[in-house]
């Protein structure tokens, strides 16, 4: 009985998937042949054009074939405008991770400081409140102008957008460490550094990790837009390039790949969060 119940959700998922593919397939079916295809006209424009209009939007089978083609050779490199989708994703992931880790290196120590000191918190709060809502892409021209390198600018944009959730969550996590744990450390005459690493850090770790999880999600959202602007490499550039090629199948493939990688990044962070989470 329970095993049956366990299969219900996956079965429903499958049904939804098939339904969506079915609708998609139905909508992209070749239209019925035009009733009066003049034979001379057909001879002029070619048989294919005359005998029914193929939809401009690719059918599921087209996309499936494209995905299969990409999977067979994900890492090919035939010049700057023709690279495998795997290479493009690798470029994007590398940029995201670089910007993200740099942001963590800044946000976690600064968040610690803000969380530990109400004075620092009040002093820096106005800046955080003003800087936080700025769209990361708004920094792009400034980054391009000052850094003079499109790839570094993309990393900078990732850095700036991952910074705030990590900073705010770290500060909040550190500030809300239970007083009694700090009191235990005080009665044991534990020094400030040891308290920070042995008491505050593990106590705030779940909150910090939640911030990091939010950040990686935002960073992955932003990288696509950033790469569309800076160009050259990356999955965002790939999407834009295929738009210029009018290859909807490639765009759909890339969209699917972006979603899957985003999910994997989130899963990874969720795993890490579970590692540091403690039951109360």
């Amino acid at each position: 009985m329970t095993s049956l119940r366990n299969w219900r959700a996956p079965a429903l998922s499958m049904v939804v998937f098939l339904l969506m593919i079915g609708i998609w397939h139905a909508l992209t079916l070749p239209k019925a042949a035009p009733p009066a295809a003049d034979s001379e006209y057909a001879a002029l424009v070619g048989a294919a054009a005359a005998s029914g209009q193929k939809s401009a939007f690719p059918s599921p089978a087209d996309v499936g074939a494209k995905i299969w083609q990409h999977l067979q050779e994900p890492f090919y490199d035939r010049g700057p405008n023709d690279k495998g989708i795997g290479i493009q994703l690798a470029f994007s992931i590398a940029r995201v991770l670089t910007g993200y880790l740099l942001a963590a290196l800044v946000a976690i120590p600064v968040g610690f400081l803000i969380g530990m000191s109400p004075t620092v918190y009040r002093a820096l709060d106005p800046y955080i409140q003003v800087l936080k809502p700025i769209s990361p892409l708004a920094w792009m021209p400034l980054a391009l102008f000052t850094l003079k390198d499109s790839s570094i600018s993309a990393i900078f944009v990732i850095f700036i957008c991952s910074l705030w959730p990590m900073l705010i969550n770290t500060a909040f996590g550190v500030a809300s460490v239970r007083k009694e744990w700090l009191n235990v450390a005080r009665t044991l005459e534990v020094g400030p550094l040891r308290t920070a690493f042995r008491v505050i850090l593990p106590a705030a770790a779940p909150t910090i990790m939640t911030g990091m999880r939010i950040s990686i999600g935002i960073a992955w959202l932003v990288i696509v837009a950033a790469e569309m602007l800076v160009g050259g490499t990356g999955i965002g550039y790939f999407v834009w390039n295929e738009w210029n090629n009018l290859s909807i199948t490639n765009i759909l493939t890339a969209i699917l790949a972006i979603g899957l990688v985003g999910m994997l990044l989130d899963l990874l962070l969720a795993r890490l969060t579970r590692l540091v989470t403690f039951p109360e």
Partner: protein
Amino acid sequence: MSEPLIRVEGIAKKFTGRDGTSTTVFENLYFGIEPGEFVCLIGHSGCGKTTILNVLSGLEQASSGYVFVGGREVSGPSLDRAVIFQSHALMPWLTVMGNISFAVSSRWPEWSDAKVREHAQKYIDLVNLTGSEKKRPAELSGGMKQRVGIARALSIQPKMLLMDEPFSALDALTRGVLQEEVLRICAETRQTVFMITHDVDEAILLADKIILMTNGPQAKIAEVVVNTMPRSRTRHDLHKHPHYYRIRNHLIDFLVDRSKLFAAVSAEFDPRHPPLVSPGLDPAEATVLDPSRPQGGGVTPLAAVR
């Protein structure tokens, strides 16, 4: 008369409200605790019991007055005074062993890991938690958590143990078992203990001296009750001792009636030497023992009383 381990001289705690009015929670507290003595503090909520304990531990500062430990003034928390918190305050991300090792390695930072673990194990065994070393606090019952708290406090071998209603969050059965354990451990280690409670029976079972606080605000020490029952008492034969009901009635009378009325009759009351009474003795001999000791916060050594 020997110098007490802890001497409290005229501590007071005042809070200033938002409208600028100042409230005195307690004031003019004088008492002392001898080495090896078990002292309980009883009073209604709001008389600042926890604040007194925090002042003794150094976690909080009194608004005025001094606390001396071994002749030196308390300026902050110290490894000499271990605290057992009401909410056990275990770190949930550490195992039982981890929690106790954290305390041990804070006390002796130069010790090797093996030595720290060996020392911690000794105290895990002492509180009968052998076999639960690798469990995390979330996997333990309330009573077991508090055992870990006790082991952690004892493991640093403090001069003094401060307990803030340690058993109040436990069910009656667990509480009884843990009280006996504390009694046994204190007898074994000759630990000096200051404990806050609102459980009269707990105080009679554990304490050598029971400090009675009047109701706040402006709470004071009304009197110090000497527990005249033999120290080798257990929960089973406690109530059979002739002193038991006299002490118990005295405490309950105080908590029910006199703690409220006390403020009115305190004209001739000397806060430096609160009366030392032993209601457990025969009514004929149950006089105020010696309210005017020359120094030491009006504390008569237990040996003299027994």
